[in-house]
């Protein structure tokens, strides 16, 4: 049940097929066979991670393949997060007694 390719090494056939679907669905191509192999590895890891989240979640959420399934957790955080932790946020003053507009 595995397929050997020079680029990516032995892989379960099903995983390669799912990755192919992912590439088509989200319009992904990779610059080299090495990059393809790396992304396939990450993709496999992420599918396992999604499965784990599915089991851990206490609500009705469903986890699985998404547009970010070929990114590492670090890459995802760097690309889509804030990239910085707030050292401070604006001081929120004491609430004034009057709600009337224009009064300080």
């Amino acid at each position: 049940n595995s397929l050997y390719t020079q680029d990516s090494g032995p892989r379960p056939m099903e995983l390669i097929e799912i990755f192919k679907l992912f590439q088509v669905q989200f319009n992904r191509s990779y610059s080299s066979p090495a990059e393809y192999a790396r992304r396939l590895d990450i993709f496999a890891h992420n599918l396992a991670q999604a499965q784990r989240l599915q089991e851990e979640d206490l609500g009705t959420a469903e986890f699985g393949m998404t547009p970010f399934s070929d990114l590492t957790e670090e890459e995802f955080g760097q690309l889509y997060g804030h990239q910085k932790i707030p050292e401070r946020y604006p001081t929120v003053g004491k609430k004034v007694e009057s709600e009337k507009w224009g009064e300080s």
Partner: protein
Amino acid sequence: VPPTCDWRKATDIISPIKDQEKCNCCWAIAAADNIEALWRIRYRQIVDVSVQELLDCDRCGNGCTGGFVWDAYITVLNNSGLASEKDYPFQRHAKPHRCLAKKYKKVAWIQDFIMLSSNEQVIAGYLAAHGPITVTINMELLQHYQKGVIKATPSTCDPRYVNHSVLLVGFGKSKTEEGMQAEMTSSQSRKPRHPTPYWILKNSWGAHWGEKGYFRLHRGNNTCGITKYPFTARVGQPVKKLPVSCPP
């Protein structure tokens, strides 16, 4: 506080889902979404404000490398408003030294901005009475999210570490059938037996992500730090009765 509230059901209040692409500008988009919704509620006027102006004119010059919603509000106050998205469109990268704020007409502005209490009941009440607000959450679980209500614990989603700003647009409870279906399709006995209270959040990763660009988080246990930074702009002068109320 009403039992349910969904601002998406009110006509022309919530602007279309945006896509930040590979620009760390969730903070600017969340603030823009907040101002657009409040402006539409208050003045019944459809405006799409310039996210690019928030990136180019940010006082910290961070643009696509990250920021926080309060940076965006300060930019709006400093520039006396925002240009339209049409005049000053999103370029997917910032030009921090090329702020073009003075070049274009302002289409929306704010009076000030506030941080709400970190109490989910207070947040729900404000949301229902005044309109959508911004929150900043730990986005860890969103990488693999497809649909449904995420119910995490502090160990699976640390509420102290928040790194993604989004717009809170409503709240409700999952239908019993949804909970039952989850029970039937999962071997996990921990799945909910009762309707799950949830928040409805508008993301900035395009309409093809999640539930048509939205996602839901469990309401009531500070899931993923949702109560850490609840911020909102204030548009117009205070009035006793708002022109629109949140649809159930």
